[in-house]
């Protein structure tokens, strides 16, 4: 640092001070984002490495190619991907419908036991879902919804208790003035019409937030999926299927294919988030304003 700069610093104005602190913050943020992005860049690069299929000590491939993606296409991955997609999509639709109806009901209707019911669901929701894993497996097994039939089984698991996740959207609905409902009712709208003609358009962020979270849960699920589909490749989702490539006898052959699978799995979620990011942030914060 030169002497000149030292003198100017002493007389630094507010603007300059801001710029300096902003600069420091930016440097820090860039550093953090680089650290955060390294694994993703690493996986993408590894997925194009074709000179070998095992783990190596360098990041940039010596030979580039699409062989790993071709291998992926020729493996069971297609099936797993389709399974995951069906489960996530079906859960997203069902969970959204049930959860929004539930929230609307609890926000607008006044009925006996409403308060106790809400408290009861709140308490029930505090138990980790994993506790029910073994009994759920038995139930699904008796229904014949395990192993090769894991997809409908996991959809059932995905949406069965979704009504209990009403808090966020109910909070959001509470912020929408009831006089809008009343006006619509006076004009002859039914309760259902009020919901989808008045409330839902106003609550777009929360609807999108609900869809996104409902989609993401099953998309990344491992524990339930493995437990329900155990030992049957046809019922695996991507997480379970790809994890089976990481065993001792598989990893040297499948490592780069695994990376390619990771990239493919990330694609729809990334697109979804990029398109809906604006609403997502609104949804998360919007619901939190009023409980």
């Amino acid at each position, binding site marked *: 640092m030169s002497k000149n700069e030292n003198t100017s610093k002493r007389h630094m104005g507010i603007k300059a001070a801001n710029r300096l602190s902003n600069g420091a913050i930016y440097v820090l943020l860039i550093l953090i984002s680089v650290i955060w992005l390294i694994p993703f860049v690493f996986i993408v690069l590894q997925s194009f490495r074709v000179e070998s299929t*095992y783990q190596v*000590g*360098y990041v940039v491939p010596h030979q580039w190619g699409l062989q790993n993606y071709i291998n992926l296409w020729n493996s069971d991955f297609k099936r797993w991907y389709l399974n995951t997609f069906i489960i996530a999509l079906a859960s997203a639709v069902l969970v959204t419908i049930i959860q929004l109806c539930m929230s609307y009901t609890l926000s607008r209707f006044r009925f006996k036991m409403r308060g106790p019911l809400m408290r009861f669901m709140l308490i029930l929701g505090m138990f980790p879902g994993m506790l029910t894993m073994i009994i759920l497996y038995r139930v699904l097994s008796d229904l*014949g919804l395990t192993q090769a039939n894991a997809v*409908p089984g996991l959809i059932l698991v995905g949406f069965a208790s979704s009504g209990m996740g009403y808090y966020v959207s109910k909070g959001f609905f509470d912020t929408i003035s009831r006089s809008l409902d009343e006006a619509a009712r006076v004009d002859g709208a039914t309760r259902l019409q009020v919901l989808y003609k008045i409330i839902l358009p106003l609550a777009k962020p929360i609807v999108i937030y609900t869809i996104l979270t409902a989609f993401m849960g099953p998309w990344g699920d491992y524990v339930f999926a493995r437990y329900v589909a155990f*030992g049957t490749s046809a019922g695996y989702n991507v997480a379970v299927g790809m994890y*089976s490539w990481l065993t001792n006898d598989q990893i*040297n052959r499948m490592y780069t294919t695994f990376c390619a699978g990771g990239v493919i799995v990330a694609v729809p979620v990334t697109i979804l988030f990029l398109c809906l990011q604006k609403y997502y942030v609104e949804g998360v914060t919007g619901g939190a304003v009023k409980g």
Partner: protein
Amino acid sequence: MKKLIALLLALTMAFALVACGGNGDAGTGGEGGSGDLAGTYKVTIWCPEATVEMTKAQVAAFNSSNTMGITIDATVEPVSEADAATNMIQDVSAGADLFFFAQDQLSRMIQAGAVGKLGTSAAQFARDNNNAASILAAQSGTDLFAYPLTADNGFFMYYDKSVVPDSDVDSLEAIIADCEKANKNFSYELENAWYNAGVFFGTGCHSQWVTDNDGNFISIDDDFNSDKGLIAAKGIYKLVSSPIYVNSSNADFASGSAVVVTGTWNYATIKSQLGDNFGVADLPSFEVDGQSYHLGSYSGCKLLGVKPQSDAKKNAAINQLAQYLTGKDCQLQRAWDPVEGKTPNGQAENGGFGWGPSNKEALQDPIVTNNPALIALNAQNEYAVPQPNIHGSWWDIAKVITTDIKASDGSDAALKAALQKYADSIQAVFEISDEVKNAFTVIGSINGDSWSLDLPMTQDGDIWTSNEAYTMDVGVEFKCRQGMSWDVAYPADNFVVETAGTYKIQLNAATGEVTLIPA
């Protein structure tokens, strides 16, 4: 909304019915043909992903070659032999009929009922055809519970000849010096009990769990915490204190290692990584106080489990298939050198996996005796301890030895402390409360039980009375024992019921006198 929910529920129910319908038990097909096993059997087989295609081909070969008229309609699913127990135990009834698994899961499999005792002729078949170590792996107590599939679950050393000259491969110290000079790593997964126990075996220590015929662990005989164990700890410290030590058993040659201690499963990969510099040998020796100790190892097996079937005919048929799959020909197909060799039908892309066979005849075959990895494995086997049944908790207890040694300063006191901690931890596995240790229980042929169930008794001073009354026929035998062990048990000879009736059992612990109280 109501309609929608009703529709959903109806659909769910309808689906459940359809799914149940498709899930009926495997039929045994038409009778007739030659022999009584003739028929078609639905069988699910779990094997590692790489072996799926070969297993399908082997089942097809069995179908066309067997003279009993058995046709197997096989569903082959990729399930790693490392995960077989976790998957089977979850739901034995929905699990596979035949499954590859690593031997350390045997006890869990037996206790879960995922495997049953092999019949007399099946056991004889396995004993006649397989080497002693693999038979030991497949038995609990004195009974056989599975068919040996390989005898290659051991480890040895791969090295980069450009870093470690052949003249140095017998000395751990020389290899460490070579690696440090070339700034290359030494991969040895010592923070894993399977690998670090070998160092202790090398200095003459032993660790043996004792199991009974039901797969239960009774006790452990272990002397890692001894003077010999201290020597092993010093050997471990030599490597883990070096900057070139890496805790890994992966094929690390592409990421900076010059030596990797691992097994046959990495052979093909390492061969392609090292090319002309490929070297493989048994483990080296290390020196402590002027004395040399060859590093030991575990030698283990992979087994083929057969799930007990309610249908006796199907049971017999799949045992035939299991014997075929673990026979000489099938073992040799898997043993085929994945790098150099071609399969017996000449197709390189369908090649074997270099799995070392357990079959006695297959072990003499050139396919095995010319495979460099299997040569090294067999050389190491002279210093290896056959892996017995091991209590599941031991792996986590024993791996900590290395972690503690690594964190220590290498002084005798610190190493001894690490071993003492280990010894305390394994003793705790068998620690039972004083209350259980002192309590008397009744055990015998009461209620048709075959001396497997301890019936509780309640204490009143020296007098112990059974909590319930039992209906006993003439000839029913039992004893009262303390702490569920046989150190203290009354009467000396079994109590034999002479008059049928319903009795409570009473014991005078001071005199050892047992009486029946009519209820």
